[in-house]
Every structure is written in structure tokens, then in C-alpha cells.
């Protein structure tokens, strides 16, 4: 899998701030979709 940074939002406002700060940041939610796509190099969120 590609290298990436992980940040945990504390509330909705924090989540919006974090997703706004990284142009290729993605919400991970449960991860079962995003992590699979990252392993296939379909999604490349970085931060």
C-alpha cells in the first residue's frame, strides 16, 4: 500500500478542517472500501 498520513477528527468541524487542508485527503469511515481500493492503487489519498 502507498504511504499516507492518518488523522482522527474529534468532531464534525475538525473533520471538515482536515479534509480541507489536504487536497487529496479522503474520509476512511470503516475502511472496507477505501483500503481495498488503495491496495489496488486505484485510490491514492495522501494528505
Amino acid at each position: 500500500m502507498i504511504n499516507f498520513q492518518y488523522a482522527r477528527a474529534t468532531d464534525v468541524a475538525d473533520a471538515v478542517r482536515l479534509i480541507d487542508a489536504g487536497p487529496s485527503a479522503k474520509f476512511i469511515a470503516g475502511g472496507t472500501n477505501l483500503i481495498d481500493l488503495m491496495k489496488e492503487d486505484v485510490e491514492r489519498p495522501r494528505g
Partner: protein
Amino acid sequence: MASVGKPQPTETTIPIPDEIPLTLNVNGVERTLSVAPWTTLLDLLRDHLDLTGTKKGCDHGQCGACTVLLDGRRINSCLTLAVMKDGAKVTTIEGLATKDALHPVQQAFIDHDAFQCGYCTPGQICSAVGLIAEGKAKTADEIRELMSGNICRCGAYPNIVAAIQQAMGQS
């Protein structure tokens, strides 16, 4: 002559982030460690804690070999980042038996010869434990449906269903 060689990266690389500290209760033992963000729970268990009972099959959430119990619920550990689960309670196949006895589902799998090669078995058993705790499956058809995330290439399905029915009867 135009330079020929490795293509240049088209995006700037980010520095490798620091490892993130986390604490997990794994099979009743508090484990504190630091891992890179992209470490899956499966890789943490296998490579960092040497708990190799949990298997890596497809690594894409399609086979169920990596199934573990997280706070009592069954999950695919290959699609879960370890850093997402700081503070959680993880039970793997190594944590099911007590000192004196196998878990009823483990014993039922032996009683019903519910495996051949055994590679899917840790995931099957953890998934079955989660299934029984959910309490949703009553019939063999429902067991088959709710165990459909766990693939057995040897085709031991009839025996797996029989084993789960036995264990359900005991719980």
C-alpha cells in the same frame, strides 16, 4: 538524445510519517506499540505480535481468512487499519480456548471434521463465534447466508454448517 530511464514521479512524495502509538487489548493482554498508519490490523497481529493464527488469504476482504473479533464483532482485519482501532479489544483464534478446554466452536469443528487444509479455519471459527453472538441465524440456510463472507476452497461447507449448528445448540 533524450534521456531515457525511470519516469519521474508526477507528484511530490510526502515524508514518511511517524509511527502512531496505540494500545490494543489482544486476547486479554494489553499491548502497546507503534505502527505506521498503513499497517492493517492483520499485519499488526501477524508481523508485530507474532499471532500468525489469523491468516492472510486474499488481503482484499473477499475470503474471510483474516476474520477476527473486534469488541465482539467479526471484522476483516485485512481491511482495517490498526490505528483506527486504538483502545479496542481484539480476539483472535489464539484467544478463544481457555487453559483447560477448547472453545465450543473449536471443538465442534473437530467433531464434524469441518476443515481439510485448515487455512480458512481460524477465520471460519472466529466468524462462527461472531455469528452465534449475533443470534440472527436459526436455520442452516441462515448460517450459510451469514457465513458467506468466509470462503473454503476445500469445500468443507456442509461440515462447517454442522459444526456451527452443534455449537449453537450449546450456547
